[in-house]
């Protein structure tokens, strides 16, 4: 493991000011992403899971600078000579780097401009980064269509002529257009039905081995993440609560929140008896988080210390990090083996 990670995020923060009144006075901060650090190696998939509102989409958008991060560094390793901090470079410099990273969106209906043909949509990143135009662009787009399993003859159709799964393939083709190193997949399958989900996940897997892509795979569903990730990060209210290799996290979780999420994963075998952990209450409000450990109001193992002291993310066993005061003591139940 000598290859440097493709992406190294350190101390990433994104605060949204809460504005009130006519003069837009700032009355508070929503800490959507609060001090998150993660790395993604070359050809690796990091799954990022969390409830809605936990800040996972915000992380993805900050990394690609669709949003400007409040603080932190985003080291992006482009090639052996060049590593840039995407958190601080200017918009213009960022435009030059767009070709190395792209995003797949959640909703296949809103992610394609209904007024554009598939040729224009998939070719847009190529045109804007001036990699191809004219007949060359058309050839490239046609071969991308082939790569994602669509027919090249449909290039001049509009998105409305395609089904949800096909649209998502078009979105994948667009993300691949410039041969990026990193793809941020923002819940790419949660809007699809289960059979289509499997197709897209397999496609993403195949593409990864074919092009050596690195994925940040965002999902709210552990079963989807299990299928595709090498490592998994679990997020709760803007913070990472556990990061571990996939099997480690699934079978030996070290954070009570991970345990609760795992207990919600449906098992296909009806004979396996499962104890569902129902978390009381709602996810904490990131504008007004609880004291101590953010998870303590919903945690069945919570003790006095959890209410006062915020736990740090620490390495419990090699490669597995968790932010729980009692990570070593608790005997948490993982997924059924």
């Amino acid at each position, binding site marked *: 493991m000598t290859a440097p990670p493709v992406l190294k995020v350190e101390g990433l923060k994104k605060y949204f000011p809460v504005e009130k009144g006519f003069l837009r006075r700032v009355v508070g901060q929503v800490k959507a992403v609060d001090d998150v650090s993660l790395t993604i190696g070359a050809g690796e998939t990091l799954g990022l899971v969390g409830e809605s509102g936990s800040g996972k989409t915000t992380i993805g958008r900050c990394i690609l600078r669709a949003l400007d991060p409040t603080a932190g560094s985003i080291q992006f390793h482009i090639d052996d000579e060049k590593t840039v901090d995407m958190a601080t470079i200017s918009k213009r410099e960022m*435009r030059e780097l767009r070709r190395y990273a792209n995003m797949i969106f959640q909703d296949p209906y*809103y*992610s394609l*401009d*209904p007024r554009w043909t598939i040729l224009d949509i998939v070719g847009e990143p190529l045109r*804007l980064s001036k990699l191809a135009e004219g007949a060359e662009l058309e050839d490239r787009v046609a071969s991308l269509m082939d790569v994602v399993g669509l027919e090249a003859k449909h290039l*001049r*159709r509009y998105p409305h002529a395609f089904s949800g799964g096909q649209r998502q393939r078009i979105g994948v083709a667009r993300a691949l257009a410039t041969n990026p190193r990193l793809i941020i997949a923002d819940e790419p399958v949660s809007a699809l039905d289960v059979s289509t989900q499997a197709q897209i996940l397999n496609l993403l897997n195949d593409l990864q081995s074919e092009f050596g892509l690195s994925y940040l795979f965002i999902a709210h569903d552990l079963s989807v993440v299990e299928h595709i990730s090498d490592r998994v990060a679990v997020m709760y209210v803007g913070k990472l609560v556990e990061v571990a290799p996939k099997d480690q996290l699934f079978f030996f979780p070290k954070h009570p929140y991970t345990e609760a999420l795992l207990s919600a994963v449906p098992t296909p075998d009806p004979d396996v008896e499962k104890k569902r952990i129902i978390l009381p209450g709602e996810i904490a409000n990131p504008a007004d988080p609880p004291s101590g450990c953010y998870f303590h109001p919903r945690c069945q193992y919570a003790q006095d210390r959890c209410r006062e002291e915020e736990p740090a993310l620490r390495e419990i066993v090699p490669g597995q990090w968790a932010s729980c005061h009692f990570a070593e003591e608790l005997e948490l139940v993982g997924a059924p083996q």
Partner: protein
Amino acid sequence: MVLAEQTADLAPVENGDGSTEYLSRGRLIRRRFWRHRLARLGLPVLAALYLMAIFSDFIAPYRPDTRLKGFKDAPPSVIHFGVDENRFQPYVYARKRTFHSKTFREIYTEQEDKKYPIHFFVRGDTYEILGLFKLDLHLFGVDEGANITLFGTDSVSRDLFSRTVIGALVSLFVGLGGVAISFVLGCIIGGIAGYLGGIVDEFIMRIIDLLIAIPTLPLWMVLSAAIPRQWPVAHTYFAITIVLSIVGWTGLARVVRGKLLSLRDLDFVTASKLAGGSDLYIITRHLLPNFASHLIVTMTLAVPGMILGETALSFIGLGMQEPGVSWGVLLDDTKNFGALVHQPWKLIPALFIIVTILMFNFVGDGLRDAADPYSL
């Protein structure tokens, strides 16, 4: 590589009989629009009205200020049809004026011994085309000695048909002009609000709230009272379009802002941004095409308001003034009750207004249905 077959850019449409047709975007829009029965009616009627307005000087047998001596408050001429020298020939009778013995109201009786055939493409009063050259050709007319007043005459003996046709020019185009100015203002101001957001947006929206809160009629009255009376008709006309659009832009600005705000956060805009698109690129290539259709619909539906605004202003005497002619000016003659009872033909211009407004609304409805054949 062979790409783009003939039908590749076409949308499949299933016909009633189970067959499938492939239509381009343009044809899809036309097809949707044409399916809207009322819009199908509205479009040709509007086209006819506008053609009538454009060629009004030619269609009208008289000038709007020509006085037909001795024919005050005359009812519409009755057109008779007969065969003359083996030719089908419409004609009118000369009319004689007498007075009612008690009320002294005019009574017009046809003199059946004096037949005047209606000629087509006749020479008559001269008019100017665009102030460039003079012409005296009219669509129809009768020889000296009689007159033809299809809609009757007004209280100072002018032909109401000629005045209605010529008045259409002001009434119909004030709507288009007003909407054009509103459109420019609305797009720029709404665009700024929606794009910049924040405090600028807040400020502009409150200004619009304020403008909308003012009842339009008094506001128009105040503004048009500021138009100098001695201005020539063309200037007054222009001033009135501006007065109308001062209120009219607010609605369009709201539409533009709302659309910008809702489209701005859609994923395909983010995707374009991530591909390296600049703000201007995103606005012109992604945002504008996506709400152009809404704009067109909003504009079509805004025209009737403008036309009614002009009519209202002219009716209360603050819009177009004599010698200018517009439908609102013509209705001025119907203000007294006696006119309505004894000369109901004076309400004919109102019919034109009603038909125009209705047709604009029909066409607007049809456009709204057709605008987004690929809607999500």
